[in-house]
C-alpha cells in the first residue's frame, strides 16, 4: 500500500506538471480578458520546438528556452489577432491551434520524414540527489521542471496580486474601459500577458517531449490544452485553486494507469475516460459559482 501511494503521488506530480504550466499560462491570458484557445497548438509547438532544439544542440535546457521563445511568439500572434485586430477570440485561438499544429507537423516531416517509431532523445533526468532520500525518494526525485512548475504557482500569485503589473492585468480583464480611463495601456498589458501565457504553455509542452517522454509523437499533447481551460474554470481563475485542479486531474490520471494494471475486468477505455469524467463532475460542482473575468472574450476598442 505504501509503495502504491508513493508511486501514485510521484506520478501525480509528473502528470500534473504540463497541466500546471499550461493553466498558469492560460490564467494570465484569461485574467487579462483573453481566452487563448491557441493553448493546445502552443503546447504542441512547444513540445516540437523543444524536442528539435534540444536534440540538435544536445542541450535540453536550450530546448526548453527555444520552446518558450516559440510560445512567446505564438502569444504575440494571438495578441496581434485578438487585441490589435479585434478578431473573435474563439476564431483566432482555434486558428492558432490549427496553424501551430500544422506548422509543427510540417517541420517534423521536413526533419524526420515519416519514421515508423517516433524519434527519441535522452530526456531530462530526475534530480538524482533527492531520489536517494529514503522512502520519499520517489516522490522527491522529480524533474527540475516539475519543481519549477510548482514554484511558479506562488510566483504567479505574487505577480497577479502583489505587483502593479498584476493589478493592471486584473483591471484590464475585468473592465478595460476603466483601466484605459485610469491611464493603463490596455493593449500593452494584454500583449504582455499573452506573451507570458504563451511561454508557460510552450514550456508545458516541452516538458512532455523533453522530460516525460523523451520523444515526439503526433498525439503528444492529446487534449491537455483543453483540459487546462477547464481547470481554469474549476480553479475560479485563482492560481492556487488552479494548482489543486491540475493535481486532481493528474492524480486521477495516475490512478487510472495503476487501475488498468490491477487486472479488473473492464474495458481499458473506461479507465482512460476516468480523469475526464472526474473533470466534468468537478466542473459541474465548482463551475456553478464561476466568476468569469468580466471582459473575457471582449475585444477592446477605443472609440
Amino acid at each position: 500500500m505504501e509503495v502504491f501511494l508513493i508511486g501514485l503521488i510521484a506520478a501525480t506530480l509528473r502528470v500534473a506538471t504540463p497541466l500546471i504550466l499550461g493553466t498558469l499560462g492560460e490564467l494570465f491570458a484569461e485574467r487579462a480578458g483573453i481566452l487563448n484557445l491557441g493553448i493546445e497548438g502552443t503546447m504542441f509547438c512547444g513540445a516540437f520546438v523543444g524536442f528539435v532544439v534540444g536534440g540538435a544542440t544536445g542541450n535540453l535546457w536550450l530546448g526548453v528556452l527555444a520552446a518558450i521563445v516559440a510560445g512567446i511568439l505564438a502569444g504575440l500572434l494571438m495578441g496581434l489577432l485578438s487585441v490589435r485586430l479585434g478578431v473573435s477570440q474563439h476564431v483566432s485561438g482555434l486558428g492558432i491551434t490549427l496553424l501551430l499544429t500544422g506548422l509543427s507537423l510540417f517541420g517534423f516531416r521536413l526533419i524526420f520524414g515519416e519514421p515508423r517509431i517516433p524519434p527519441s532523445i535522452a530526456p531530462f533526468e530526475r534530480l538524482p540527489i533527492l531520489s536517494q532520500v529514503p522512502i520519499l525518494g520517489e516522490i522527491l526525485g522529480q524533474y527540475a521542471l516539475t519543481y519549477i512548475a510548482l514554484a511558479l504557482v506562488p510566483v504567479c500569485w505574487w505577480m497577479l496580486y502583489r505587483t502593479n503589473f498584476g493589478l493592471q492585468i486584473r483591471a484590464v480583464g475585468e473592465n478595460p474601459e476603466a483601466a484605459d480611463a485610469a491611464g493603463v495601456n490596455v493593449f500593452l498589458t494584454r500583449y504582455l500577458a499573452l506573451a507570458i501565457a504563451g511561454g508557460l504553455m510552450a514550456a508545458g509542452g516541452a516538458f512532455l517531449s523533453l522530460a516525460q517522454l523523451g520523444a515526439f509523437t503526433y498525439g503528444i499533447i492529446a487534449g491537455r490544452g483543453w483540459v487546462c481551460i477547464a481547470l481554469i474554470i474549476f480553479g475560479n481563475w485563482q492560481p492556487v485553486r488552479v494548482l489543486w485542479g491540475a493535481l486532481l486531474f493528474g492524480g486521477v490520471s495516475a490512478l487510472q494507469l495503476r487501475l488498468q494494471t490491477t487486472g479488473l475486468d473492464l474495458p481499458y477505455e473506461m479507465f482512460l475516460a476516468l480523469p475526464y469524467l472526474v473533470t466534468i463532475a468537478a466542473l459541474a460542482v465548482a463551475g456553478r459559482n464561476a466568476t468569469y473575468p468580466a471582459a473575457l472574450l471582449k475585444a477592446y476598442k477605443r472609440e
Partner: protein
Amino acid sequence: MLAIQMRGITKRFGPVLANDRIDFSLEQGEIHALLGENGAGKTTLMRILYGLYHADQGEILVDGHLAHIPSPKEAITLGIGMVAQHFTLVPPLSVAENVVLGYTKGLRFDPGAAQQHVAEAAARFGIKTDPAAIVRHLSVGECQRVEILKALYRNVRALIMDEPTSVLVPQEVDVLFETLERLRGAGLSVIFISHKLNEVMAVCDRITVLRQGRVVGTVDKAATSQIELACMMVGRETFGVTRRGESPQGEARLRLESLSALDRKGLPALKEVSLEVRAGEILGLAGVSGNGQAELARVLAGTLKPTGGRILVDNRDLTGADPTCFLVAGVGRIPEERHESMIGELSVAENLVLECLDEFTRNGLLDRRRVRQHGEQLIAEYQIKAQPTDRMRTLSGGNVQKVVLARALSSKPRVILASQPTRGLDVGATEYVRDKLLEQRDQGVAVLLISEDLDEALALSDRIAVIYEGRIMGVIPAGEASKEQLGMMMSGAWEVTRGETEN
C-alpha cells in the same frame, strides 16, 4: 491655476456632425455647466477634452499653451479628469486598488500602503469612503465618490462630471453638490454636464448651452432663468405640456381586484391592490421607488404570476395569463427598462414587429417587405431619427423610447401600461412622450402611468393613486391633490379610507 480653452472643435461620426465649431472656456475655481438635450454633443466635446475622442478640427489651450491630448493619460497629466456617466471602475477590486490603478510606479504593489495613501487623499478632500471596501459592494453614490477621488488622487485640477446626478437618489445628489462646492472652494474647476435645469441653476456659476452640436450661448447663472435656459436648449419658445380639457370618462377598462404578488426574494410586494382605470383617463400611480411598482408592472405584463386576486381587462379575466394574452387583449406596454424590451442586434423595423410577428408572417415566413414598410411608416409617424435597417443599439435613448411608443401604440391598445416613460429622456423627448400619452387618453384609451416623478404624475393624470409598501394608500382626483398630501401618502403617514374620495 488651470484655465482651459477649446476653440473651433469639430467632430464627425460618419454623417453625423456631433460637434460643430464649438468654443468653450473654463476658468479656474468655477463650476461650469454644459447644458443640452441628449445628443446635443456635450459628452462628445468632453470626451475630446479628456482624450477619448480626437477632434477633426480645432485646438485646445491649457493655461494658454496649445495642448495635444491623444489619450486620457495626457489629459490627466495636464490636470484634467473625468467622471463618466457609466463608472469606469473595476468591480472586483478594492476602492484603493481602483484609485491607484494606472498611477503606480515600480514593480511591487503593496495593498496596505495603497489603502493608506487613498485614505489620506480622501481625508484631504473630505470625501467619505472605505479604501478596503470592494467596489462591487458599494452603492452608486459611493462609486461616484470613488471616481472623484480617483481623479483627485491624480492631482487633477479640472474635473469633468458627465451627468453625475442621473444615477443618484436625491440624498446622494445633495452630498454630491456639497462635494463639488468643497472642490470649488479648494480652487478646482468643475465641468458639470447635465440636461436638468434645476440642478444647473442650483450648483453652477456659468452655463454653456449646446444644441445639435453647436453652442447656443454662455450665460452667468445670476443673469438667467430656468425658462431662458430651457428655451436655449430646445430652441422653442413653448415649454411644458398642456393638458387638453377633461375628456368624458367611460367604463372601467382595467380592473385589479385584491391583487397580491411576491417579489424576487419571495416577500410580499403587492398586498391586495385594487384599482380601476377607465377609458379616457390617465391614472397616475405615484410612490417612492421600490414600493411594488416594478412587480405591478410585471404582473400586468404577464411575466409575474400573482399569488391572489384578479386582473380584468374589458371584463375578461387575465389573471395568470401569459404575456401574449395580455398583448392580444389590448394591453400596450411601455416598460421601465426600455433597452431590455428591445433587441439591440435587430433592426428598428424588426423590433417594431416583435410583438405581432403573426401579422407579418406569410406561409410561415416573415414578409420582409411589409416589415420594412411598417417600419418606414412608423418612423415617419413618430419622427424617429433612424432608418428601418439601423441596428437598435445604435439609437439614442430618446429615439429608443419613440420606437417603444410606436410599437405599443401602433397596435391600437385599449389599455396602456407606462412605467417611468420619461426617465432619463431630455426635455424634447419627454414632452413628446407626454403628448403621446395625453393623445391616447383623449382617444379613449385607459392609461396606467407608473411614475416616480410626482410633477409628471400631477401634470398628466386625471386621478392619482399612491402606492406604499405594496398597498394602495388611496386614489384622489389630480385636481384636488396637493404635493403635501401626496407626499404624506407616499411615506405611509396618511391613508385615504376607501370610498372617501374615490368616485
